[in-house]
Each structure stands twice: as structure tokens, then as C-alpha cells.
């Protein structure tokens, strides 16, 4: 953890071959994916609920959320529980195993040309050496208003 004031620690995760980053100060815990209880009539992206620290927490399937193909959970799948704006929500990702300090200077705004999902859910893109890390806009990702099934980048009513 760097002590420079312009660099922030992130937790990185993989989703469908791409690396994303979440500010670690919003991450409450990272768990394996176990025992998700489906919630009837909840939106597609909501895999269900799990118990985390004695609280019942919704688990979002990020693949579904971002319009990717669903993939079966395996030993590497992780549930990243975030705590932001008073809400505690879990996100299911392919794998999560890295802490990385990213300097603010390395994060740029997402290019205008990225329409649809990407524009909404991304806060920025970090360019590090030979790596691209997409920085998530957590509030948008967990916003209920965004739970519509998305096909080919076009939102359609669930």
C-alpha cells in the first residue's frame, strides 16, 4: 500500500477475459461463491442472496450485468462484497486475486466511442505498462435502475 496521496489501492478482478478494478476501500470482503439462494422474480442479473458477515446480501452476477455469457461457477469464482452509499452488495466475478495501487495519473476517462454498457459502468480506464484495467463505477453497477436485460448493448425491458 503506497503512502503517496495520489495513488489508491484497488482490488482487481477478471470478467470474460478483461481486468477490472474496484477501489479497495469499498470492498468489505472477498469470498468464494457458495450457497447463493435464488430470489424469485428478481432481475436476471441478480443471482440471489448470500450471507456475509451475518447480513443478507444480494449477489449480482456481473457477467449477466454486463451482457456476457453466463459461465458456471468454479473454484476460482469470487464474490466481491462492496459497501458503498449505505448499501452492501456482492458481485460475482470470474476470479479476483490482486491488490494493486494505481496512481490517479494513470486513470483516464473512458473514450466517448464506448457506448451502451461500457460508458455507464465505467468510471475510467487505467493504463499501466502493458495492462489495461477498467475502473468500475460501483454506484452505477449496483443501481437498481440499471437492472434491465441488455442485449447487444441496447437496453430492453426485462
Amino acid at each position, binding site marked *: *500500500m*503506497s*503512502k503517496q*496521496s495520489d495513488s*489508491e*489501492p484497488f482490488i482487481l478482478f477478471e470478467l470474460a477475459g478483461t481486468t477490472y478494478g474496484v477501489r479497495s*476501500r469499498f470492498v468489505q470482503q472477498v469470498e468464494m461463491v*457458495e*450457497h447463493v*439462494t*435464488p*430470489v*424469485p*422474480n*428478481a*432481475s436476471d442479473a*441478480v443471482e*440471489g*442472496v*448470500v*450471507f456475509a*458477515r*451475518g*447480513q*443478507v*446480501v*444480494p449477489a*449480482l452476477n456481473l457477467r449477466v450485468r454486463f451482457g456476457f455469457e453466463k459461465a458456471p461457477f468454479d473454484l476460482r469464482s469470487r464474490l466481491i462484497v462492496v459497501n*458503498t*452509499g*449505505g*448499501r*452492501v*452488495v456482492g458481485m460475482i466475478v470470474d476470479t479476483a486475486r490482486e491488490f494493486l495501487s494505481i496512481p490517479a495519473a494513470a486513470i483516464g476517462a473512458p473514450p466517448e466511442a464506448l457506448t451502451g454498457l461500457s460508458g455507464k459502468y465505467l468510471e475510467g480506464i487505467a493504463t499501466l505498462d502493458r495492462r489495461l484495467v477498467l475502473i468500475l463505477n460501483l*454506484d452505477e453497477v*449496483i443501481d*437498481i435502475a440499471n*437492472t434491465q436485460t441488455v442485449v447487444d448493448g441496447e437496453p430492453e425491458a426485462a
Partner: protein
Amino acid sequence: MSTSDPDNSSEFFAQFLDDYYAECDEHLTLVRRNLLALEAQVGQAQVEQALLDELFRSFHTLKGISAMVGLSAAEQLAHHMESYLRALRQSETILSAEGVEALIAGASTLEQVVAARRNELPLPGITAVVARLEAVASDFSSKSAQDALTDDAGGKGLEPDGAKAEAGARDAVTGATARTWRVEFVPTPALAERGVNVNSVRARLQEIGELVQAKPQVRGKGEIAFLFVVVTDADESVFASWGIENLTFAPVEETATAGSPTLPSETAAAQEPEPGGAPGTEPVPQSRMLAPSNVVRVDLARLDELMRMIGELVISRARLEGHLGRLKKSVSAAEWRALQETSLAMGRQLRDLREGVMRVRMVQVGEIFERMQFVVRDLARESGKRITLELLGRETEIDKFLVERMTDPLMHLVRNAVSHGLETADERVAQGKAAEGKLTLRAAAVGESVLIEIADDGRGIDKGRVAARAQAKGLIGEREALDDAALLELICAPGFSTRDEADRGSGRGVGMDVVRNTVEELGGRISLETESGKGTRFTVELPLTLAIAEALIVSVDGQKFAVPQSAVQEVIEVETSAVKALENNEIIPYRGGVLPLVRLARLFELNDVRERAAFHVFVIGSGSSALGVAVDRIIGQREIVVRGISDPLVQVAGIAGATELGDERVVLILDVAALRQSAANR
């Protein structure tokens, strides 16, 4: 002060930091309380000595632990406050208002520094505050510096801080020939066979001196090596005499150990004094505060664990009772009675245990109130308003978990009251009110709930403005009259509050919607009373007890659900052949009449297994409004611990909450009223 120590990136250090933050919280809480008490004694000839002692100790400890984690700004602040307290203790200066102000400013800034570090934000400046502290202590600076030397060296029962640990280790070994050595060991299979491994090397080093560091490393060609740093007065020949190949050693030049944080792993390996001021070594103060040695600090997570275990015991006992019931016919009446009595006794004891653990989790609401005093004081100063803060019922106890969750929301309400509710002195006088605005925080236990009120006698909520904004957002129609309840609904609507209110240090926006969500998630309610020109009062009611209810556990399409027993009239088994279809509905013969049937599988879009010969139904409602809900199987009856579900992502019709049956899997609790509604709507 080391700021680029690569070891800071280790997870271990992160956990060490967590302990540091916890200790800071504790000490700062005590400091806050004591400073407020001190304020009341300004100008007195004799200030309560115990109070000064306690403050001094707190600052001394804060200085020590801050040095250990390398947070120099905090260390400096603590140091200056400690110096001033030292002077006060030795009756060398009379407590002045300016002095207390400086201390309060110092404590606030210290708190901010720690919080900033915790949230990885830039640290606030400390120069101004330090200057103030130095100014109040300045007359005595030369004298206090001397005392500082005698104090620490003479060891008045206070622990040396970690910055001196390595020097301490060196001194402990004594001897003019004590030197620091770097020893490197590369393990090989051949050596291991001879019994020479990292453990044996470590043991030898510990025998000849103090082991200050032991680290694994990977060298150039990928080979693993171990690096030890040891302080010893043995000389080279000793190392050589061990006859270990792959053991290299070299003396290290003594460097000024300017307080580089001592790695906790060294503490384990060496025998060093405990880092800065462990509470157990402090003499018990005479003040009215809880004597630290009588207090045990417990991780809230462990208490959650205890509660969970108790929940499980409750469930097991319920199951036991079920089994016992079935035994009735097989045992004698006397044995049966004995079994019953034991089971009942257990039930009673469990209740007592539950209450006991809950009492452990209880803390005084005063804890939150105190924090608010500082916030109000700052805000008042900033806005130039004059505010009296009235705190009532601070000894009211609530569950620590509630305190944790409610602190931010309550803080938000307080800020709103100060920033928007209360007017400036001039405005108030013009209205014929007292120049000083009054803010009242009140806590009271009422039955099974705790009530927390935040009231101000300011201008009240501007209904007109709220209505206008709501209309603009399409939330209400034109000209709707707004009562207090409707007003509350509006200001708590997501997106309604503007997030441009400067929210210092409270992270991302805590708006009114978050306040209400939090309260409801905790099973509570929030209500509003407001009158234009007179003031506003928010009342939060929170349940004290764990909600435990009897429930029927049912299974549909392999998934379990819980149904509140209180809503269930009866439970029956139905043959598929007995079901008659009537237009869109299904009915079965029931008690001489018919019972409409609704299938849970269909309501929840689960798999409806129709091929069964028979299935189970639980009946809700009675008489003409009776309704049968069909499930695959009724599994049994259990006592469950009810937990709320309030995140919007999973708020669906028909689900009232969630519980867990002891295996960490969530089981959803059905909302019977909603079921009935859904059934009616088909």
C-alpha cells in the same frame, strides 16, 4: 520516519494497522470525554488530577502507537498534547480556556489524520494546531523538555514506544562489543539431511543474541534464502565455528533508528517489550470512567458469532421439542413430564443466555452523542451560528451493531439540523427567538425498542420548496397537500436530496434515502414532525431484540422457504386427483366446502412438479377468505431468527425477509399478505 518501507505492503501490516485504528478509536473516545469534562474546569485553581493523568496517558499511548505504524503527523500531535498535559499535571500552569481549545483542536485534528490515513486520503495539515499547542505550553517548554527525559528514562511505569525497540534490544544485550549482524542462510537438501535447516539456524542465533529480523528471500537464480538480523556480542569466530556452508555473515553499520516501524514478526522472534502502552500495564485511574483493566475489548464479529450460535441453539431446541412430542406415546407419564420440564428449562436458560449476550453487545448511546458534540461544535463555528446542544438519555443502551450502523445516518441528521434547520443568531432574534439555537439529542428505551430523537428549534422544513422540487421531478401531482408523513416520503426518495452538501469525512453521500434504508434494514422506523418557524424533529425507533419467530419450513422445486407460523391456519396433504380446475383457478374440497388453491411454484416461476401423486398445502386466512398455498413438501416447523432484506435489488413481492437454518444458506421468508395479493391478481 520511514515512508517507503516496502514491507508496508504486506497484508500482515494491514492487520496490524487495523489494531492500530481500533486502539486509536478507543483512546480518542476516552480523550473526547475527558476533554469535555476538562472544559468545565477551566479557571479553577485545582483541576482534577485523575482527569489530567488519564489524558496524559492517552496521549502518551497515542504517540507511541502512532510512531509504531509510522504515522508521523499523529505522533507529533500526540506528542505536543502530551507535553502540555505534563505541564498541567505538574501544576506548572493553570488551565486556561485557550489551552482547552488547543487540546480540543489537537484531538480533532488527530482524529482527522487517522481517518485520512485509514481512507487513503491526503492528511490534513497540522502546523497550525501544533503551533497553538506549543504556544500554550511555551512558558514551560525548557522545563518540560527536561522532565520528558527523566520521565521516559526513569520509566514511570510507562512503556517505551516501538521507535526505540531496536535500540532497546541492543542495550539489552549490553556489552561494548554488541554489534548487529546480517546473516544469510541458503537451505539445501544435503544440509537438511544433516539436520541443518532454517529452524536450527534460527535457534542458534537466538541462543547467542537477540534476533531482530527473520525474512525469506529469493535470490538471483530463484533460490530461496533466509535473511536474519541479529544483535550479539559474540564475534565472527562463533558463526564460523558452526561449520555451516551456505551461511554468510557480515556486520552492519549502526544506523540511527529514526523510528522505522518494527515489523511484528520481529516481535515474535525477539523478546521485546510490548509496543506502546498496552492497557493492561496502566495503573487503574480513580476517575468515574470505567477502569481500563476491567474492560475487555471484543471484536464485534465474535459477538455476532455468539449470537449466531445462540440462534442455532434455539433452532436445535425447537427440533428437540418436536422429537420429544413424538416420543410421548412411547414413554411413561412420569418420564414424559421429566423430559418436558427439562426441555422447558432449557428454553428458559437459552432465553437468559440470549439476553446475556445481547447485554454484552450493549453500549451506551452516549458514545455516539459525544462524537456529535465535536461535530456540532465545529459546524457551529464554521457557520457562525450559536448552538446549544442538549443530550438526554445518554446512558440508554443499544446494541453495538446498531451503534455502528446508525452513527453515519444520525450524523447526517445532525448536520442537516445545524446546516439547514437552525438559523443564525440574527435571524433568530429577528423572529423573537433566543439567539442560541437548540439542538436536542434524546435516547430512551421504550418497551422492546429504543427511541432516538434529533430535534431542533429552527425554521422547520420548507414544505413549499420540497413540494416544488418533488413536482419538478414528477414525484407528486400538482397542489397536493403535504403532511409530515408525505414530506418524509419525499425527502427520503432516492435521488431527492442534493449531494452537493459538503459532507466532510463521511465518505460517499449519505442522503436521507440511505438514512431511511439503514433504519428499515435494522427493522426500525423513522418519523418526522416539523412546523414552519418552530423546528423539526426526527424520531428513529429501533428494535432491541433479535426477532425470533416460529416458522413453517416448506420446499418448492428443491428450494426451501419459511412461512411465519402465525399466518398459517392449517397444514394438509392433498391428492393431485382431488384438485379441480375452475376457469383459471384450482380448488380442492375442504371442510365440507372448497378451498381455492394457489401454487407457490407458479407465483415464483419455479418448476411446478405436477406428476406427484400428492403434495402439501398450508392454509392462510380463514372462513371465506381462506386460501391454500401449494408446495411440494412441508418439511417441518422451526424457530427462526428473522433478518431483514432491504436492498432494492432483492426487494420482490412475496418475500418478507430471510433467515438461516444453521448451515449458512439463506432461506427466504414469505410475505403472506403479498402472496394473497398476488393470488388475487391472477
